[in-house]
């Protein structure tokens, strides 16, 4: 029964939270902390902290954490399955339609409009991340160094992440 409840709750979270990333947090909080009371407010804040130090989508991280805390490893798998299920069905269905009608006037028109919009969207995400990540001259130094590395070298994003992390340990310890 617990498995079904976990699955359905995360199915709801995955199916009704738009925008990805931190935009999903309010709905997750509502379901997990207030409705089901699986976690306390403090534990929910811990999830956010844990998500910041672990990779992957925050919704998947929350699902895994809650599932694990309440049922164990199988619970975390069930919750994760729930949170990605809707995505899987919707995306594969829509992808099929889009690929089939890629050259049609309607699909071409829609993408003519949203292709540049996505660049604006990513730019806006960059600004909001800038505000929360670049908080002092040390973080500014790290960001600027990485920007130079990125434009002058062909380093893989993963290498950039590792270098910046090590630089963080050095710079912030001084």
């Amino acid at each position: 029964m617990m498995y079904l409840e976990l699955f359905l709750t995360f199915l709801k979270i995955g199916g009704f939270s738009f925008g990805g990333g931190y935009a999903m947090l309010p709905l997750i909080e509502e379901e997990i902390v207030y409705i089901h009371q699986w976690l306390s407010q403090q534990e929910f804040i811990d999830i956010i902290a844990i998500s910041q130090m672990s990779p992957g989508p925050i919704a998947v991280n929350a699902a895994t954490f809650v599932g694990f805390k309440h049922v164990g490893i199988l619970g975390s798998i069930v919750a994760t399955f729930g949170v990605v299920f809707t995505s899987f069905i919707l995306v594969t269905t829509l992808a099929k339609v889009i690929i089939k009608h890629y050259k049609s006037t309607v699909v071409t028109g829609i993408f003519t409009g949203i292709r540049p919009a996505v660049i604006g969207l990513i730019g806006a995400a960059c600004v909001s991340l800038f505000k929360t990540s670049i908080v002092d001259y040390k973080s500014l130094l790290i960001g600027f160094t990485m920007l130079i590395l990125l434009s002058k070298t062909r380093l893989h994003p993963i290498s950039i992440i590792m270098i910046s992390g090590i630089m963080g340990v050095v710079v912030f310890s001084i």
Partner: protein
Amino acid sequence: MDTYLKLFWIFFRVGAFTFGGGYAMVPIIQKEIVEKKGLISETEFLDIIAVAQSLPGAIAVNTSVFVGYKTVGVLGSVFALLGTVLPSLFIIIVLAIFYNYIKDINSIQLFFKGVRPAIVALIFMSAVKLAKAIDKTKFNYFIITAAFLAIAVLDIHPILVVIACACTGLIYTARGKKENDVS
């Protein structure tokens, strides 16, 4: 089988290194799928992000499912999706067990404090690369600016912006077509 494992491995790395959620995965997927493997073009990548953003669920999950489907079909989506979520699943379980010990280790905190500004630089470069990939028309410049201001300044929900821009695109292409038909 080889293609499926390759997809799995690409998205395993995407899942293992997207710190910061949402658009943080854009630079890694761009590098792996667009630049190194050439599986999809920059413009197709933009279309996929647009779809991923417009549907419910995590952006990285939606993107991986779409890329998997586009490259090898439904089974490709399954492998891409598994690759994306498995690192999270594993790391979160480990962190959940050891969180009380880990959270007090100072150097781990500092490491992630250092990663955050790098994500900003990475996403910025991705946006620049993607902007170079589309045509330099007045329409495109207008939409980029309008979408950016709508979200960054006016705080309008991204989905509403995507819908509005889709409608603008539809009207724009329909009018362009009409003019072509007349002339």
